[in-house]
């Protein structure tokens, strides 16, 4: 029986295995050096904060793998021989494959800062990083985080639960400024400050200084300021983990180069998830280090390997995150700064940390994207609206249909539409009647098909 070997047991690799198993009976082996069983990487922060234990982060009970005949091996792949279709493991064992999937994930970015490898300095990606963070935080009182993205804000939340002060060095003039528009960014920053985070904006890391014990004792910023600390978190993004692949015949760029079918230059070798760099005709190749895209790529590749060659299509873009207590969702595309021919409607609650931004084409009025903070939106509805190029007028009038907040939560659609009418005196929009009785998407979609 032909053997599929998957390197990496993150969500992308595991999704491939599951979708191949759904369609075929072949032998499947997943090799990972991180943990024996698949766990949810996104939940690492909750282990640290004591919300969950490691066991809770495993999406499948341990019996699942045996029952589905997916073999697991905890070992590190040290060599890939694509001619002999053979892997060499750190233990010396050799593993032969017929199909090989590379799902090796990411590594934290380090930009050559002096002192970046000192004890007490780390990123957060793997289970081992979490264990290290546990060790590093034992007696820590002050932490400095470098780079203001999602991992950074999660690290800040984690550290604060241990009573550790957090200073955040942010290169841009605002938090996550390369993604978020100004208002949203300010909202999150204020919220983080309320939780006790101190921000240093337009500030970069220059150097990490070691103390007498050899551990990090302070950082020096681009402004020349020295900030005392006993923990430095590197959260300036991640890059594909291509260490073992780069010595093989498999073509790599920043990541492992693949086409839209996630196939590498070598037949029967594929890459999926964070480590894959998808070649595009024009512009910069895509690397998508996200849970959702990892899962969707895994699904597509699973089908391909099982014989039904399937292109990876991302569909309408979406993402979501949580910044301390504020949930964030985005659908479509919202750039971080104003664009030509794109109008941007922004509503924010006067006191609460809630806001919505909807962008639309100035001429056609077609909605191009939404950012929502503190208000949950229904994925199917937005997906449909964006795919069907609905207008701002239609979207605002039907905004109630998209609400996904729990029952009894206060609703703001009327405020939103009033604000829009005020900003656009020529428009006299009103909410469509509440048709929640007739609107249920699960089945309607099935019928629509």
């Amino acid at each position: 029986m032909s053997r599929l070997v998957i390197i990496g047991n993150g969500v992308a690799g595991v999704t491939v295995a599951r979708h191949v198993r759904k369609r075929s009976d072949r032998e499947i082996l997943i090799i990972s050096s991180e943990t024996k069983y698949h766990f949810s990487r996104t939940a690492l922060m909750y282990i640290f904060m004591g919300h969950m234990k490691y066991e809770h982060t495993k999406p499948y009970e341990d019996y699942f793998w045996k029952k589905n005949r997916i073999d697991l091996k905890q070992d590190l792949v040290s060599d890939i021989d694509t001619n002999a279709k053979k892997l060499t493991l750190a233990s010396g064992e050799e593993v032969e494959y017929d199909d090989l999937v590379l799902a090796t994930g990411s590594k934290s970015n380090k930009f050559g800062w002096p002192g970046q490898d000192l004890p007490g300095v780390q990123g957060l990606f793997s289970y081992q990083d979490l264990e290290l963070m546990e060790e590093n935080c034992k007696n820590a009182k002050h932490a400095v985080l470098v780079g203001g993205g999602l991992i950074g804000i999660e690290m800040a939340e984690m550290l604060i639960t241990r009573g550790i002060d957090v200073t955040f060095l942010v290169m841009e003039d605002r938090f996550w400024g390369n993604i978020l528009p100004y208002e949203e960014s300010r909202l999150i920053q204020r919220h983080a400050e309320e939780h006790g985070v101190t921000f240093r904006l337009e500030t970069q890391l220059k150097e990490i200084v070691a103390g007498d014990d050899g551990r990090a004792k302070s950082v020096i910023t681009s402004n020349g300021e020295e900030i005392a600390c006993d923990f430095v978190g590197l959260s300036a993004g991640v890059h594909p983990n291509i260490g073992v692949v780069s010595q093989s015949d498999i073509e790599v760029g920043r990541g492992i180069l693949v086409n839209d079918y996630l196939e590498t230059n070598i037949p029967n070798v594929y890459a999926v998830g964070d480590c894959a760099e998808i070649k595009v005709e024009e512009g910069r190749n895509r690397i998508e280090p996200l849970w959702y895209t990892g899962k969707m790529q895994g699904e597509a590749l699973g089908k391909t390997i099982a014989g039904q060659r399937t292109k990876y299509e991302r569909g309408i873009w979406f993402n979501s995150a949580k910044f301390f207590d504020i949930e964030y969702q985005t659908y479509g595309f919202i750039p971080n700064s104003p664009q030509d021919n794109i109008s941007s409607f922004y509503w924010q609650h006067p006191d609460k940390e809630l806001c919505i931004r909807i962008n639309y084409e100035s001429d056609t009025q077609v909605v191009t994207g939404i950012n929502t903070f503190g208000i949950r939106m229904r994925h199917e509805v937005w997906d449909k609206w964006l795919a069907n190029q609905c207008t701002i007028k239609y979207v605002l009038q039907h905004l109630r249909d998209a609400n996904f907040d729990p029952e009894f939560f206060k609703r703001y659609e009327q405020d939103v539409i009033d604000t829009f009418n005020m900003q656009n005196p020529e428009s006299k929009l009103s909410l469509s009647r509440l048709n929640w009785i007739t609107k249920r998407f699960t089945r309607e979609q099935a019928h629509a098909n």
Partner: protein
Amino acid sequence: MQTSQLTWIVPVRKGGLSLFLIGLLVFVGMLVINTFTLTDNALSNAISNESHRQLLSPHFADLKGNTVSNKASFINEVRSTLNQYNNTLNERYSISDSDIAAIMAEVNALGHYELEQLTNALGTSDEAAYKIKKLTDYTNWLAGAQGKPLSEIEQVLKEKSVEINVNVTDITNGKRIYDYELGQYVYGLTKSASSGLVANNTGLFFFLSIILGTVGALMYIVPDKYTGPAGIKNNNIFFNSSTNGGFIGLLATFLLVAIYIALYFFPEYIIEWVALVDPLFKGLNGSGAGPWSIYGFVYTLAIVVMGVRMFIKYRHSNYHLTRTTSLVFFQSCFAFLIPELLIKLNQPSTDLKNMWPLDYDFFDAWNLDSLSSSGGIGMFMLVWGITLFAIGVPIFTYFFGKRWYCSWVCGCGGLAETAGDPYRQLSDKSMTAWRIERVVVHGVLVFAIIMTGVTLYTYFTDVKTIAGIDTYSFRSAYGFYIGALFSGVVGTGFYPKMGNRVWCRFGCPLAAYIGLVQRFKSRFRITTNGGQCISCGNCSTYCEMGIDVRAYAQRGADIVRSSCVGCGVCSSVCPRGVLKLENGTVNAVVNQSQKDETVQIINVMSAEEQQAMAK
């Protein structure tokens, strides 16, 4: 608003914790500091049956007037005196070897056996009359039979007397003290005989235990509101041994189990607690408190105080605020106040929101008799009780799901959702646990139905056995194993080890019944928001019913499970806002093959959208 800037929080919380622990210590400690003196007064208070009192009084002569400081030894003394009395009674009414010898002497003289000989041999006392009656019943076939060898007659008499003696406990002429009376007397005597520090200072002890404990708990709970912005804060739950099933959890389990065992089986050990709330209950119901009064009081207090904790912990969520308000209201009014006021008004006392089969004694003969003989209000309660489970459950569950009862109204749910909230993460999520749950909880439902069926059969036909089994034995087995051991001792006692819904999940027959409606005919379901699940596991971890919510969410499937009580915590703890409790209008997708992984992109426009576009 940094924690460190609010310097008052830590000392207030520490002080609160200390006060609470002092209150708890006094509450438990007061059980061992009273002294006990049995007086005639105590006897007449505790034993209202006058003939029993007169019969028993001489047996208590030794104990009377002595002050005993050790409660256990006093209780043992009283209990053994009562048992001794019953044993003496047995001895007096049993046919002894000397009785048989006396009869055989008569038989020897005459040559055969005659019933008249019995009076000659045994005399005319009370017990002799009893023995003669029994021997007459058992041996009249032998009387007058000529030519039987004497040894055979003696053999028959011996065998029959063994049979008679086995049943000697059925002496019904008001002398014997039955088990239930014995329990009442032990409890009543212990209560009436108690004196000393606690008995003389109930007000002070009420303050030092209940008030101090409550104030302490609130001091611990309320500052949480000021430690930071509202939102889900489950920090350190798995590091704290009181909430991760560790040592403090074990201690709490031990304490709760001990309290439940005392409450159900040895209420005489907690008479000091009853005394604490006696004045309060006199005011409420006009007659005073029993062991279940203090239980009801502390239970309601726990729901109110921990309800405050819910109001603070989930202050960002109107769903939790609303349902917690509902739970506190139904517990304090329907379960606590109204039944007591009904007693005061001389009406049958009932908890109108409780229903069969959770309220398993609803169809007991005494309850049916009491309700049907109490005029209009009794009749109303009877009809209401039946309507609620027969019509109310299917209708409400169809529209709102199981939650309308389990996490909005029910008293067991009330405790689980408030006092039990800190333990919700301890429920077992494994497939094995689910398998056990399904067998056990539906088994209890079947047991409840059979038990009620045979109880009603006896009620209407007066036939007391079915297939040779005493129908009451079903009822008493259910009461002991399910009513006392399962719902109380295990169901609540094991909160700190097995999570807060042990009873609701594995044992409650009403939950099983509502669950069947929810699973097969209800608009309620939890929907998942497209493909946005990140499989983090918060939903599963914090599901008190042990549902592996994530298993559904990561597939993008609706969650329709009979056990889901709709508490809404999965939706609250989800860091990506993926879950929503909904009462939909179309069938939920329960066929998992219809949904797979991330949501498919739908490119079909509805008619109204196309119209909108055209404008």
